[in-house]
């Protein structure tokens, strides 16, 4: 049924075998979740005894375990790593939504892990996370439903063969998860094409006749969409579409401990691509996290939009900074991560608009970063343990970090 023409998804989708995983890591820059965690998924499926809704590969409980990781209490034979760091109930709500009649819309600031969660969910439920439609201003209804291979239509007329199904249609036909990235980036008329897909669960093809004219969704199909909360108001969802989605808001991680875990987890993963194994010194990580925490606080306390950085200061941003700094120190530096390098990466990553962001950072750098003592005092000792290291203002890392940042800022002139 599936057409080879549509997306690379289809080429891959032929049941990713665990054996091929190692081989494909050579040929693919980034493997989809179902290939990357193929062994885990296969194992979980083998021990899963709970009923599975529709044609899901795993039961909801196992999906939860897959995403949130297993503890010693779960008594599995192999470790299941935690892949998404966040509130457990949020993941539960997302899983349950997929099992229900409604689509799932993940909303959050950029860099909060919406797409990652969507990918994990799709991989765990249907073993294929590649039925993705990327929403852009140029997305048309054809991208959501189907289009025609013009040459074949001229040669043989309109038929199922000459039709190019969209990733979503493919997902429907196979009973798998369809994903829609950045739903709010495309226009309302295009968005509304989803309404009938979500409620009737079929797509009609008026050009064809008879049985051919309707493509029904197999059980197991559902939609996972993501939307950026910064785009709110650009292309507001219609009420009808809103009703067909359950919204799950993914907050920015503010818990220091889990943020640390995320940053380390992701950075290790990214560095593994370059076969660099790095140890981020804990003090560096603390400096990075503390600076971001202070920046967030400073941003939250400013009233006007002009005084805010364009960056959302999300966890992904931190990972970006750290990755940049690590790569820099690995290729051009003396391997070990230096505070100055980190500061330069931070400034380089956060400055997007040249006069505005530089001046905001400049102010921050001189008001807060240099006086970390003062910043700390305002928050009551909740993070006494973590902030103990950078708290001593004399620590040489902090000084080097501050100096590096200032140097980077001067270079912007």
């Amino acid at each position, binding site marked *: 049924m599936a057409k080879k023409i549509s997306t690379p998804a289809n080429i891959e989708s032929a049941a990713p075998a665990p054996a091929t995983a190692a081989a494909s890591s050579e040929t693919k820059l980034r493997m989809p979740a179902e290939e990357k965690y193929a062994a885990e998924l296969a194992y979980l499926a083998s021990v899963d005894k709970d009923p599975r809704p529709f044609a899901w590969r795993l039961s*909801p*409980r196992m999906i*939860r375990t897959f995403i949130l990781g297993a*503890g010693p*209490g779960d008594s599995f034979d192999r470790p299941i790593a935690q892949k998404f760091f966040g*509130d*457990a*109930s949020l993941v*539960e*709500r997302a*899983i*349950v*939504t997929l*099992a*229900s*009649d*409604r689509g799932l819309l993940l*909303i959050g600031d950029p860099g909060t892990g919406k797409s990652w969660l969507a990918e994990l969910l799709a991989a765990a439920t249907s073993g294929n996370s590649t039925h993705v439609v990327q929403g852009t201003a140029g997305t048309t209804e054809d991208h959501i439903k189907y289009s025609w291979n013009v040459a074949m239509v001229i040669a043989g007329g309109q038929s199922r063969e000459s039709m190019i199904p969209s990733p979503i249609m493919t997902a429907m036909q196979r009973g798998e998860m369809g994903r829609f990235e950045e739903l709010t980036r495309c226009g309302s008329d295009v968005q509304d094409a989803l309404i009938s897909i979500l409620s009737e669960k079929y797509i009609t093809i008026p050009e064809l006749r008879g049985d051919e004219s309707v493509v029904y969704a197999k059980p197991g199909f559902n939609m996972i969409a993501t939307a950026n909360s910064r785009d*709110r108001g650009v292309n507001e*969802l219609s*009420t009808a579409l*809103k*009703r067909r*989605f*359950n*919204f*799950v*808001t993914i907050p920015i991680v503010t818990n220091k401990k889990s943020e640390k875990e995320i940053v380390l987890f992701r950075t290790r993963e990214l560095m593994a691509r370059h076969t660099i194994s790095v140890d981020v010194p804990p003090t560096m990580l603390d400096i990075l996290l503390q600076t971001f925490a202070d920046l967030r606080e400073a941003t939250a306390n400013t009233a006007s939009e002009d005084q805010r950085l364009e960056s959302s200061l999300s966890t992904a941003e931190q990972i970006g900074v750290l990755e940049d700094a690590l790569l820099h120190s690995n290729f051009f530096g003396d391997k070990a991560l230096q505070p100055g390098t980190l500061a330069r990466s931070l400034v380089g990553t956060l400055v997007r608009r040249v006069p505005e962001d530089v001046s905001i950072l400049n102010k921050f750098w001189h008001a807060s970063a240099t006086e970390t003592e003062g910043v700390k005092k305002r928050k*009551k*000792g*909740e993070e006494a343990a973590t902030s103990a290291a950078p708290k001593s203002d004399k620590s040489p890392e902090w000084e080097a970090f501050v100096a590096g940042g200032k140097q980077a800022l001067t270079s912007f002139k």
Partner: protein
Amino acid sequence: MTSILDPALLDPALQALRTQLEAAAAAFAGDSAHLGALLRAMIEDVQRATAEPVEVFPVKHHSPASALHMLRRLRARAPKVIYMEGCEDLNASLAGLHHCRFPVALQAYAPEAPAFPVDWTPLNVVLPLTEFSAEYQAIAYCLQNPGTKLVFVDRSVDHVFQWMPRGGPPPGSDDEADDGGAEPEEAEAEAGEGESAGNTGNLHGGAVGLQIGAMQPTFGDFLDVLLRNAKVRHYSEWWTQYVEGPTLACDYGTYRQVFFLVGSLLRRIGITEKDRVADCERERYMWTRIREHMKAHAIDPREAMYVCGAIHAVSPIPEFGSKGTAWTVPAKTPTQWFYGVVPSSYAAIERQFSLPAGEISIAQSMWDKGLQALDLKPFKIEAEKKESENKPTVRKKAAAPAAASAPVDVVPAAVSGAGLRDFLTRPPTFVAADDEQLMRWCVEIVRLARKNGYTSSTADTIAILHTATLLARLRDRPHPSPYDFQDAAVTCLEKDRVPGRRDVRRLCQILLGGDRLGRVGYESLPPLAQDVYDRLAVLGVNLKSSRIERALLDIQGRPELLPASDLLWRLRYLGAGVRPIMGERTLGHKPKQESWDIEIGKHQSSLIQLGYEGLTIEQVLEKRLKAKAFEATSRAAKALEAAEDSVLYLRSGRLTRELGLRATELLRAELGGNDAPEIFQRVRGLVHYYRTLGMPDWIKDFVSTGYRHYATLLPTAFTDRGTAPRQLAAMLAFIFTQEALAFSMGCERSQLLIAVAQAEPDDPPKIALRWAAQWILGQRSEDEIRADFQHLLHSQWLLPAFPEYMAGFLLALEFTPRISRLAVEFLSRAFAALPDEVLVPWLPKLVVTLRPLGSGVMQTLVKEAGLAFPRELGKLEAWEFAWDRSVPVAPPPAPKARSEVKPAAALAVERSPVELAVATLLRAEPATLDALAGLLGVAPTWTPLAGAPEAATASAAEAEAEPVAEPVASAADTPLAQLLAAHPEALQALAARLQALT
């Protein structure tokens, strides 16, 4: 019934359980020695607690299961005495629980506590009680049945504070989260900062909260593991699912053992070492008290019940039990405590003990459900009936439930360890599914959401139901808990966050019962509060309402409202939940109409706390004012303020006099003039106020003391750099403005003369002040001052200091408006003469100097300036400063001149002889102007030239043509005339031309 107390019966079953657990430990844990030891110890704990002859009743705070079991237990078998965990001295406030709407809190309050650190006071302890707690049921039972006595046995409130670590933050304030957020005495005081607007979360204020049966794990790692394995978010959720629910319906013996077991688990690995030590201390205390009481009242241990937190029930201390070792209770501090009942609220309790929001309402819904399922009637604390019918009803009540409950009562505590074993080995029995309730919730939440602006429909109801069920299954629950329901509702309903709209989670809380605000009934209030209620009754607003009530007082129309208004002002002064919207209270102000926002219902607790300080509001107010004036660090200004407040709020001559005399006394002892500005302002106000009523002697005394005192201080103040010019000015102001009164009290000016003569100031502002003072005293003439300032202006070296001199001189305006003319003169000169680099930086300072002088001074200055400067532009040319004229003749002011001229006559502009000549000439040769007038389109009419030579016309055309054109209106008012007057060149040229032609 005795079976429960017989250890012989229990042991075998528990022993079997123990063996089984040990086997399990050996099988599952690699390090079985530790686990085995732990499990064994836990079982031993259970055995020990069960074997205790005193019936130990383990509870958890606000736990419906505990309450239900307490209810059933008391129905089945009433003990003679109930010992309860709870500060022993709070017994005193139990009586106040009648007439209350729950939740309320027992309170102990100490306004002063010299034995404790200063920043701790006032010490405040609250013990909130909800209706669905075991302690409430026990208290209610004991209040209804005099046969059973209730005794609080825990350490006294005093010890609560004694055992707190000194040097830490004040208790009750936002305390540092040390280990798990709990203080040793389970006072997890979280309240303190941050007014949560609109809700009652901050009701307890900075009080230290106590709970009966606190069972919060304080050891972070333990809690993490517990929550993670149970797949729940909060400890309370875990509790509800794994302990509360299963024990709700099980029999009493099992309930006890399960609670013992959980308590033992928490005690052994769930709490921090610090908490464990503190717990031991308290348990020693409690058991010592229990034994003392039993001995004193000859009570058989078997007839007693001991209600305490499950953690305390499994204490390993040697003092445990009716036969435990003795212990001496530490002494109390001499702090005087007051006891009472204050209203509480669910939100306040949740906040105080950092429970997740909505927790208490969920507990309440479980309680209601449990009552319904078991068909029980709870004990209620009700208002006492009249004495005559009291006893029979109580007996009847006591008898009736026993009969009624007989069939309900499940196996009256004929319990063996098998109960616990069964409980642990069988799969957990959860509360029976209540689909109907869930359905109702789903429907209700959609309705509620729609009401709050969400676009929700029946489709959502179905989706919520579906999602809730799925969520529950995902979380290993056969039936959705309220938490699952909440999550489902949020998932399905919340699409985007709109500021100002309630979010779905909040709606769910409202649905499950929402916040409830307790109220203390009138009868249970302290006399002060009752008095306030009585006296405010005349306003006709609902004082019990928890909302803001608006009271409108038309005092002029209804003079009987005046006392109520007085009372409201007093309450406001004491900060007890009233706020004036319109109306003021100042010296001598007669109130006509006032409107008030009254929130007494919500802030009942502050009123109750006032009640600890006195019998009436007036008494408390007097106390406060006196404390303010008589404390060791008080200053004259403060005492005077207190005196003024006493005039405003109390109208008690005696008190005012006392405070006033105290102020005089303080003033006499004061060494500097730091407070002089404030004292001066207050005295001026008071003297002004008393002038119409007759001066009381204290104010006379104060003024004469002040006069002498400040006169004495003057020479030092002039030279001392520590005294600011403003303070010096205020001292002089005091002296000069109150001079008359002071003279009448026997002061003499000679003192002042000598003092001023002694003053040798160095600073420019003070020198200027001295000049002003000397001028008033006649020691320096106006011309001399002028000469001084001229000297400043003309000396290049002194010029930069001119602004400072001026600043000082302007300060003198406060006490003598007479210098305003001079001030204007000097300012004008300064603007004219000062170079820019001195003038421009000075200008902002000038504004700053003038501002505190008040509007009155500014008015005088402006008026004076208005007199000094020309009013019209036309006069500018001929104008010169009044003080520059050699002859100090005051020219007739312009408006006067205008009023003299006849209405029909022309401008009030003087004419020079030349102009006069031109006018005469024009009248002789009218043809040109007639033609001109024709061109301008006006009828040429000539008014006769005023005969007298001084009557004049400004310039020919304007003067003659215009007034004729509009004879009625004053010519100066027409725009054309003004324009011409402003630019006379054209006409003057015309006139010159005409003259040349002739």
